[in-house]
């Protein structure tokens, strides 16, 4: 995607017309991959009849948890053996405190990787120009048609007919 490319951005006030529009667009031959829905509230794919979105966040979280677990194991079972110091007659690597350390590190790994997962999956942060209109954060739902459609005007008309508040060709701009 380069800044020069133009896309159609149709803004809807409600979910139902937006869902209809998506269905119609699909019939017009606009592939699902060419469409994107931008909304001010989380609108699920099912509501719009869109295919499920792939997300890596849960996997990353799991991976982070495993990494954290390993760090915890390292801290509680490996580091004490690097320099063995006896305290209070306890074993060098006692299990009960290790549970705590391992738990905390697992959770930390999980939380950090979840957070980073959002960044990775959503390409955050990104301050490049993007196709967007501020009305979206007023609760509107916008359909972004990225691929150059076969018949631009037809699409525009269709969208208007289906209740789009505005349909426009957008360029990427600084948010």
């Amino acid at each position: 995607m380069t800044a020069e490319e133009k896309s159609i951005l149709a803004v809807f006030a409600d979910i139902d017309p937006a869902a209809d529009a998506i269905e119609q667009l699909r019939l017009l031959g606009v592939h699902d991959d060419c469409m994107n829905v931008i909304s001010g509230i989380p609108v699920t794919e099912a509501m719009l009849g869109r295919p499920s979105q792939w997300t890596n966040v849960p996997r990353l979280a799991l991976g982070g948890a495993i990494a954290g677990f390993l760090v915890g194991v390292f801290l509680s079972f490996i580091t004490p053996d690097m320099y063995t110091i006896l305290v209070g007659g306890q074993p060098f690597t006692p299990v009960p405190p290790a549970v705590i350390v391992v738990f905390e590190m697992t959770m930390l790994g999980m939380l950090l990787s979840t957070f980073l997962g959002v960044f990775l999956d959503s390409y955050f942060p990104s301050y490049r120009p993007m196709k967007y209109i501020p009305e979206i954060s007023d609760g509107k739902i916008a359909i972004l048609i990225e691929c150059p459609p076969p018949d631009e005007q037809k699409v525009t008309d269709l969208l208007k007919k289906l209740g789009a508040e505005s349909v426009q060709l957008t360029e990427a701009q600084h948010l």
Partner: protein
Amino acid sequence: MVRRLFEWVMSPMGWIAVVIVALSVFSLAAFGIYRSQQALKPQPIQFPHNLHVGLGVQCLYCHPGAARGPSSGLPTINKCWGCHQQIAKTQTSDKLKPLRDAMASGANFVWVPVAKVPDFVHFNHRPHIAAGLNCENCHGDMSQVEIAENPQVMNMGWCLSCHKERAGGDEEKFIKLTDCGTCHY
């Protein structure tokens, strides 16, 4: 390309990156300045270790304490004089003027130690010599340097690495040599 870079630098992330880089450079510089300030004060006499070692003077001749106690000791002026009074050049050399003056006035030299550990470390030379270490193991080869320098950072990691190695596989020795109370009390 240059323009893109410029734009990126002007963007918020760019600023942050610039600030981070600037901060790191600044701290590195500060650290470097700090370290470079650690240069030792000049010694009262530019004592040439290489010359004395080359002449066959044993370390323990001037630093006899190393073999029997905690401190290796610095030679007294009398000891310097013991040899130097028999050397004609002593009376004429400019470099040795401080020695002549000290001998005449009864004053002492104030040396700047180069091999030192913090005062919470109780270092004892004797067991190290007794364990078969040579002076140069820690202090470097003095025949190669004019004014004494410390060849290593004498920190705990350095002490420990040798202690662990020296312990070999002997568990009791290892425990003794890595025990906190062996050096810190």
